[in-house]
């Protein structure tokens, strides 16, 4: 899977979770950039990303994620 393909699917997940079809994210996006991305919505987001890519984040990965780019790195690592 290419980085672009991951983003295409990831944007759809963000659109679902935040109920906003216009939302797009990139490598630098952090929680501070997205309206409503608080710690509680973060849980939903992690769960939805796991479902979309059929992967499962372990705790030490989740606690280290700094921005969307790092999340995409992990996704690419997991799905190959």
């Amino acid at each position, binding site marked *: 899977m290419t980085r672009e393909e991951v983003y295409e699917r990831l944007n759809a997940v963000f659109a*679902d979770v935040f109920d906003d079809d216009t939302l797009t994210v990139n490598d630098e996006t952090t929680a501070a950039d997205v309206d409503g991305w608080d710690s509680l919505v973060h*849980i939903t987001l992690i*769960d*939805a990303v796991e479902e979309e890519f059929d992967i499962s984040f*372990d*705790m030490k990965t989740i606690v280290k994620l700094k921005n969307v780019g790092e999340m995409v790195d992990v996704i690419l690592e997991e799905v190959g």
Partner: protein
Amino acid sequence: MKELEYPFDARYLIKKKKSLKRQLLASDTRFIDKKVAILGGSTTHDISAMIELFLLNFGIRPEIYESEYNQYWEDVMFDNPELLEFKPDIIYIHTTNRNLTFPSIGTKEEDVKVMLENDLNRFRAMWEKIDATYHCPVIQNNFEFPPYRILGNSDCYDVSGRTSYINSLNALFSQYARDHKDFYIEDIQYLSASYGLDAWADPLYWHMYKYALSMEAIPTLAYSVSCIIKSIYGKNKKVLTLDLDNTLWGGIVGDDGPENLAIGQETSMGQVYSEFQQYIKDHRDIGVILTVDSKNDHENAIAGLEHPDSTLSPDDFVVIKANWDPKSKNLVDTASELNLLPESFVFVDDNPAEREIIRAQVPGAAVPEIGNVEDYIRAIDHAGYFEVTNLSADDKKRNEMYKANAQRAALEATFSDYGQYLDSLEMTGVIKSFEPVFLDRIAQLTNKSNQFNLTTKRYSRADIEHVSESDEYIDIYGKLIDKFGDNGVVSVVIGHINGDVLDMDLWIMSCRVLKRDMEFAMMDGLVERAKGAGLSRIIGYYYPTAKNNMVRDFYDRMGFTKVSEDADGNTVWEFDLKKDYENQNHHIKVNA
């Protein structure tokens, strides 16, 4: 909304909760509004969001109060203006084994007993405070099993084992529930077992987010709570309507002949259908009405049900529609014969095409995807259609009552004069002020009546108790007995005294006694009491809903005069008590 019916896709609901909520709120459902306080011993954010979705889907629009993280006890026990002002209609306490302190290994039996008592007392103090302060129903989790067992299998019988501790504490909670009204246990000990404990209590969610259960398990927890709430507010289904061939027995009775059907203990296929029939038959004891809706010649249907190995017999069904009409027509006809709404029905049929027809033609009826015969029970059971919260003596008799109604209808056909028919029923009414023994049934009726209901005001058991004890109200119930049987409490009327006026809060009657002149007997009873209290007028209100059109002109029939009507069709009626009043009921002998 199909997405919110059991079995739901938990991850889909979690991801889509915002847009699902938007869609539900935009639908044309006439919601009832309820305030739900969720007091948690762990994070409750998504639990609250899921409860909201499921309740909306049941026609209940909740306003939700959530305690701060792990403040469930403090929120109740200490001054809490915010919760007081919120005025909850119901309180759900979500605590889990993460909120317990367990005995250390080797603790002596008497010390474990003290710990159990202390835990129970801590919770009991909270429940009693809620009862005293908020007078509202409480739903309390019991506890799920621990995620590990230091003592291995002996953890369940060594008194210091955690498994043993949870079993004991849960038993104490259950005892409290048996002894107290308006107190309900959400059995997460069962739910988590049924779900799979390891998947239910994923430690990642506790350590990362302080959720005591995994995200994917939250919808299961929330659905179960929502089922209890919808049951309390009268949104349970009432009827199980069943297909016959390959649903209640294996084979097609018209083609194979009754002697060749798979039913009974001789073969495994016979056994699986017998177990399902027993499961269906047991629903009679919780007040669920059974009917048949089958494409068969009537005599073949009866021959199948009279099979010597059949657990169910023709007598177990209030209505049997076995013909070649569309099943949707049969279902709607059955509903109208029973004076029930089609949305009170659960339709069970092995044929996906028939299920699709009902779904399309009878909106609101539940149509479970029942799978193969070995899956039928689980599919119906886990959906919680008939969640039991208050089992009244009436529930057990309901099938007989509806059956007696069918006999009355047959009798009616033999009389040309309706008054003669009513007299032939030899009716006796009991019309009295609320009495303690009937408070459960009265509260249940206020939540179940939709059609013959002037204001659609709902009352909890505690509300009814308050009305009954206060002298600011005139409250009467009516019971009706006739030669076919005792219909039980079928009508409730509540008005509050406002100076020299009686303002009607509620006037309801069960549709099973329509056209029996019971409403006139209630009116007579009301007028007598209002005059006795020295009042000069009764003011009645009619608030239209999607379901109560039948009582739009009710007050006119009772002799009231219309005072006003607004653009939404809400009407206000007045009855002058100064005038002479002649009793309007002539067919029911009333014992006051």
